[in-house]
């Protein structure tokens, strides 16, 4: 591949610009931040994977309830451990960047919300999603009754084909109508 995580070649940089929604400055900044996550001896190695624990120390992800999901979705690791290479990291930032299209944002959002990776959002996914959104503390949790009601309502709205789950196209349909998805589905370094 010729990818060196320790320094970005000029043509590498331009390729990354071609392939992501990031500008040159953003890529360089991302690279800087990423190399800060590496340990000393990892810096010399090309294509290092940074384990999920270290990725999650980034302040931008630290308070995000979906941080683990985000890492898992963007990770290309074979072991499904959520570790990211620099390229995965760039993918992440690109999808969350300002100029990324609604399409790609909604695609990744869907995969992030799809907790069991089965390609649809079913009741279990929705429940987990609600729990993520309402936080860990008990006082913000919804009661089971509320949860049931909420999930029913959501399915009623967005499950167009009435199969009990929300699939990608339904999800994108819903998202594309939303006035503030694009402005809030952003992570900036």
């Amino acid at each position, binding site marked *: *591949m010729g990818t060196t995580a320790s320094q970005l070649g000029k043509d590498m940089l*331009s*390729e990354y*610009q*071609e*392939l992501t*929604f990031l500008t*040159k*400055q953003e890529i360089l900044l991302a690279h800087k931040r990423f190399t800060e996550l590496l340990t000393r001896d990892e810096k010399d190695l090309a294509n290092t994977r940074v384990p999920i624990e270290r990725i999650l120390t980034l*302040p*931008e992800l630290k*308070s*995000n*309830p*979906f941080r683990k999901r985000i890492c898992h979705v963007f990770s*290309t690791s*074979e072991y499904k451990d959520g570790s990211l290479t620099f390229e*995965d990291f760039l*993918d992440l930032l690109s999808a969350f960047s300002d100029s990324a*299209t609604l399409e*790609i944002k909604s695609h990744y*959002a869907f995969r992030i*919300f799809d907790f069991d990776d089965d*390609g*649809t959002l*079913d*009741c279990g996914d929705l429940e987990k999603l609600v729990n993520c*959104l*309402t*936080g860990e*503390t008990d006082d*913000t*949790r*919804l009661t089971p009754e*509320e949860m049931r*009601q*909420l999930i029913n*309502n*959501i399915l009623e*709205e*967005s499950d*167009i*084909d*009435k*199969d*009990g*789950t929300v*699939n990608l196209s339904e*999800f994108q349909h*819903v998202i594309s*109508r*939303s*006035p*503030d*998805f694009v*402005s*809030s589905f*952003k*992570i*900036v370094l």
Partner: protein
Amino acid sequence: MTRDSLITSENDVDIGLEFEGLDDEVDTFQEEHERERHRGKRRDGERTKKKKRGNGERRKRASRGGQEEEKLQARHEKKGRRKRSRSDQQAKGREGDEAEQPKIKSSKAAKTRKNVKNEKTRKVEKEEKDEKEDEAEDEERNVKRKKKHGSAKKEENVEDGNKHTVKKKKRKKVIETSSEKETSEEEDNEEEDSEEKEVRPETLTPEELETLKEAVDERKKLIQGLRGKPWAMKKKLVTLRESQEFVEKYEGALGKGKGRKLYAYKVMMTKKWMKFKRDFENFKTACIPWEMKIKEIESHFGSSVASYFIFLRWMYGINMILFCLTFGLVMVPEALMGRPYGTIPRKTVPRAEAPSAMDFAVLWDFGGYAQYSVLFYGYYNNQRAIGWLKFRMPLSYFLVGVGTVAYSYMVVIRTMARNANESGVGDDNSFNFSWKMFTSWDYLIGNPETADNKFASITTSFKEAILEEQESRKDDNIHLTRFLRVLANFLVLCCLAGSGYLIYFVVRRSQKFALDGLENHTWWERNEVNMVMSLLGMFCPMLFDVISALENYHPRVALQWQLGRIFALFLGNLYTFIIALMDEINLKREEEKIVKFNITTWEASLYNITASENSTAPPVTIQPADVPRGPCWETMVGQEFVRLIISDTMTTYITLLIGDFLRAVLVRFLNYCWCWDLEAGFPSYSEFDVSGNVLGLIFNQGMIWMGAFYAPCLPALNLLRLHVSMYLQCWAVMCCNVPQERVFKASGSNNFYMAMLLVILFLSTLPAIYTIVTIPPSFDCGPFSGKKRMFDVIQETLESDFPAWFSKVFSYASNPGLVLPFILLMALAIYYLQSTSKSYKEANVELKKKLQTQNEENKKKNKLAALKAQMDLEEARKAASPSAEHQKNNNASTDQEADEEEDRGRSPRMYNSKNGRSPPPPRHDGHLTATRAPAPRNYQHGSQVSAGYLPGFTLENEARMHRVPSLQRHGGSEKTKQHVTQD
């Protein structure tokens, strides 16, 4: 063994996917699997054959898997394979093994099949995971095969090198497939690489060139759209490189001879141009001011606080333009080319004021030298053309005034339209819950505290939405609430009226003070108006906040009320201020009349004196400072506005420093030695009040628009203010504010603010236009002195600077007979556009409905197909499995069959179950019997003698029958588990 289970599990997944209705093509795929399985079950002896087939299947799948993003290893290997095949080619590898024609054919067939399969790649991603263990091994085999394949093809190429036709056909086919399916692109690419290397451009016919060109264009498009693909970076990189390579290779081939060079040049230039564009984009983003600052805030406080700063920046941009207009077209020309200071009375400080004209207090009030400078209206001369450029100063002044307003209108409306476009049909409420669910998290939040607040607010919003949905919102005492709300509104109205009266009173009093002479009064009395206005603007919102607690509104509604009230307050204050100013203007005009009369007598006496003293003496030169002059109400108005802006700015900054910074410091450091927790308790830290700040900004801008005509320096001042605000507020937010408790989303309210800005713009241009149109300008100051009305300058220009016919046309055009129909026409156009937009909206709704029904129909069709396939399977299974079991246990098998009958009868109902993901039970049964075929057999074998087994078996069946409905809700795995335990 493993393969058996492997296939069935795959099957399972396939079916599960199918029920999700992802694709109907899966049908065929599944059938294939079925057949395979039956074969496997029936002919145990034909293991080898099956193995072969399974291998083929798997190989195909594995090669597909090579594309999959998760598979690093696979990719490496593939890369290696590609490299190998390429190097083989370059060496014109004749050393490759002698592959026979049939083999090639079979591989070709495999390829086409593969292409078909590729469509499904995405859908069956899942199943590849199951195969992971076998993959490495498979991949190796695959590589070998591929290698063979590649070299074989070359062999073929070498063999019939001159017979292009065969190859071309093949290539065309490949190209077509590649254009159809993006996923298969990569693979095809390789093949294309290996095949097309041989093709020399000169031998191509025009159609082939056409196809080639299409392919190249396709690639280019792919490169362009690559960033919008949700692939892993590695895959994107590979695709990019390959596509680029492809494009580079064949772009040259497209042009022939001379054209080729030109073409290459063109390609090169496009490349350079792309690079330049990209660099320019980078440069542009680097040029956006305060981007990093705002992003930092965004990541701490979420998008709503950042939206204020973005608004501020936008405002700054507008003011920059306004400033450029006034500065470049009015102030600079007058300062450079107009008569210098002290040449005429209006450009000189009067004798009486001269001693104190340089005092700081006076300058701070914009009196003295500041008053008699380009900063204010009165300084400008009414000379038609100034300097060597013959710059039409009065005309320019007028046009800039009009242009400022016109530009502001244009920008605001355009931004509003764009925002409305962006939010699109955001007003339809059909996805209320889903939006709350899917889009409520603000991913920018990087601060734990903000995140906690966000969690809380999301929870409340969920709960509220549920409550609203249930419509069980109890109004414990509707009369009390109503009464309280009326009371609150009454109180607010009282507040508004009171503040209005206070301002009016203060302005009138200040006029009295002004008549007495400002020197006799204290600082407070001199600045009363502005201070009172600022203080009201500061404390009334707090009062409103307290009052609104009475009303018990939903927080969002409460916020809207609050905003509306503050808006009304500001507006009322502004308008009272203007009314008071109007009074003052009238007073000044009275004064002006007297002065005018005095001046004529004074001039007459002057001449009389000179005439009587000495008729031959040269006319007495009077210092311009000594000439009596009128009050010049325009400058007065300008001064008032400038003072207002200054005091407003000062109050904002001081509240910022005291209210935010000092409070934060006190809370922070006194917390160590205080009896209660200051940080969590009463004073705590302040929040950043987005709506209040935005309103402040909007009103500030309104004042600018109102006053800019009479004080050209206002945009410059405002620019300064906004600049300082940006830094000061950024700093204050970052260092002493805590995130809001109620985190509001930014974009929803964006257009709300814009609408307010538009209203303010309209309301602030009204008085300005009124004064321009109705009040005659002062006789001895300003660019329009000596004219009856300010806009006469247009007519004057028309008459003297344009040919006669032009003014004639203009006068015709401006007569009511033409203007009225024109207005009518515009109204009609608006009506027409509105009605079309309404009809579009209706069509939209109609289409949505149609889409929905179509979707449902499709779903039904899919389900039917699935059902049919499932029936087939059932039948086949029945034919297969009982045959084995029949010999063992007749009784049991009949029982089981009965059970299956039952299951099948029930199956349609199960399909309609809400949970589509759980695979339908009948299939599970089949699966179960297939995978665990040996176990029950043993069981039966052993217990055949005992009579007690039979009831047990039926009991199990019964249990299953009962359980099935309840199981529908659970996942399939659980079901399987249950069966296992039962067994």
